[in-house]
């Protein structure tokens, strides 16, 4: 590359950007183009028929409902775990801190069979819950449990650094102005953490919506009842119903991106309110 076309003093602009764009083009843009082309080749009436079938609608509802429920649990417990890991000393804290990333490192199929073995009515937890009349495995509750597992690290890991860098003076000022400890936490600390927690929730939601491996073993997979959207896409593919798979996938993907965008916006607004108020 000639000095004339240089952007700044460093070399390698053409090479690095060229390689990046070719790689992205081949591996991401081209496949997405195939999806758009295939979806566009369906008539609107046919497309609607495929995605508004009761079985597809039930799968969408379950996928979104379970992912949202799991994200809510992870928001609550993620804040708690981050707080406990950053603020308190207890034996084994470092080990626990390292283990938080397990759902990210453990292959999803292993998580799936492990959770099923635990919550099955003969499993360690399932056997204890059975006398109470609570069944987790092979129900919608099981789907949510799997998604809580998969989404666990995200809120913890986004909140931890913010909590670590929080100015001690902020809390000390609140305390010296007469705020009770819980008031300080609720009115001063929590607003500072919410934007980061929101980012964590978005990441957990994105992961949970599309999750397949950890869910299909524990879900029971009854059509219309415990069948998640990714599994329905898989079933359509196995039936060689490419049109059906494409329509459901395109709709699910678009809806997921919309939801993620909305949650992102919400947490950004919350963050701004906290910064202003």
């Amino acid at each position: 590359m000639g000095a004339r076309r240089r952007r700044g003093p460093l070399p390698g602009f053409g090479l690095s950007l060229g390689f990046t764009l070719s790689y992205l083009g081949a591996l991401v843009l081209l496949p997405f183009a195939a999806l758009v082309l295939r979806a566009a080749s369906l008539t609107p009436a046919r497309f609607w028929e495929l995605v508004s079938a009761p079985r597809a609608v039930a799968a969408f509802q379950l996928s979104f409902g379970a992912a949202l429920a799991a994200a809510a649990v992870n928001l609550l417990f993620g804040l708690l775990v981050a707080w406990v890991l950053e603020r308190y000393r207890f034996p084994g804290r470092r080990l626990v801190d390292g283990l938080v990333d397990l759902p990210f490192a453990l292959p999803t199929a292993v998580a799936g069979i492990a959770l099923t073995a635990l919550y099955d009515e003969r499993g360690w937890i399932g056997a204890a819950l059975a006398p109470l009349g609570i069944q987790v495995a092979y129900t919608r509750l099981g789907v949510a449990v799997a998604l809580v597992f998969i989404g666990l690290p995200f809120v913890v890991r986004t909140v931890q650094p913010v909590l670590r860098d929080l100015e001690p003076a902020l809390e000390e000022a609140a305390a010296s102005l007469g705020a009770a400890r819980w008031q300080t936490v609720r009115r001063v600390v929590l607003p500072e953490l919410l934007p980061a927690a929101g980012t964590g929730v978005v990441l957990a939601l994105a992961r949970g919506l599309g999750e397949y491996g950890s869910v299909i073993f524990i879900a029971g997979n009854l059509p219309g009842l415990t069948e998640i959207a990714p599994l329905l896409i898989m079933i359509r593919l196995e039936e060689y119903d490419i049109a059906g798979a494409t329509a459901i996938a395109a709709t699910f993907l678009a809806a997921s991106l919309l939801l993620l965008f909305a949650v992102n916006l919400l947490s950004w607004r919350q963050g701004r309110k906290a910064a202003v108020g």
Partner: protein
Amino acid sequence: MSRELSPPAPPRWRNPRAEPAAVRWVLVALALAFLAFFLLLPLGVVFARGLEKGLAAYRAAVSEPYALAAVRLTLQVAALVVPANLLFGLAAAWAVTRFEFRGKNLLVTLIDAPFSVSPVIAGLLFVLLFGAQGLFGPWLMERGVRILFSLPGIALVTAFVTMPLVARQLIPLMQAQGSDEEQAALTLGATPWQMFLRVSLPKVRWGLLYGVVLCNARAMGEFGAVSVVSGHIRGKTNTLPLHVEILYNEYQFQAAFAVATLLALLGLTTLAAQALLDWQARRRGGAGPGRA
């Protein structure tokens, strides 16, 4: 790890940033109970069920020919995918953090895109490209090139799913480091490649390794996307996670969990490597690589 220590409260002086001991105990107990239920028990049950029929049965399950073939395929996939995504991560991070150009934000969004795509949909994308009814399927079939139901297809979907992992580690790191050293090297007469290999790469080595470790774990453990394009041919296109699924669906539970322990060990090794790299990076000063 340089974390804030909550100072022990001296007598008669109340630390304004500390809660009463009872509250502390309850919160710690709650958090640990949650983590025990969702992390320790699932991990424990894999090993317990894998070893429930004794060591001999365990050894038989993990050394059976189909299991070994699955191990070999899984290693092959990782050997293809990890270097490709490593090169991509380096190139993308260099372009994004060292130059200004139009559409940079869009590029960064695109790099993250695979994280928001269900693995099953990722698999479907490649079926739409290379399947019998796909864009290139018929053309490739005439020429006898097989992509789906074989190693290239499995490697492609795995590369898609794990694509952002190295880049996401490097971009914030290289952004924070800036390029003063690189410019100094050039001024002192280094060639561009000398500068890259002897200045830029060593600067990011811990973050780079962190990304590689994570990418490797996800590549070896990928299930949904691989499930779509593999065809589940035993001994040929079965990766380790797919082998676990098949054994499980055949009610060979002990064997399924025995093979699953291999993947669980991969996960634990990954966590240990992450902790080690985190500690290394912090010890050498500067921020450690970001997590998750």
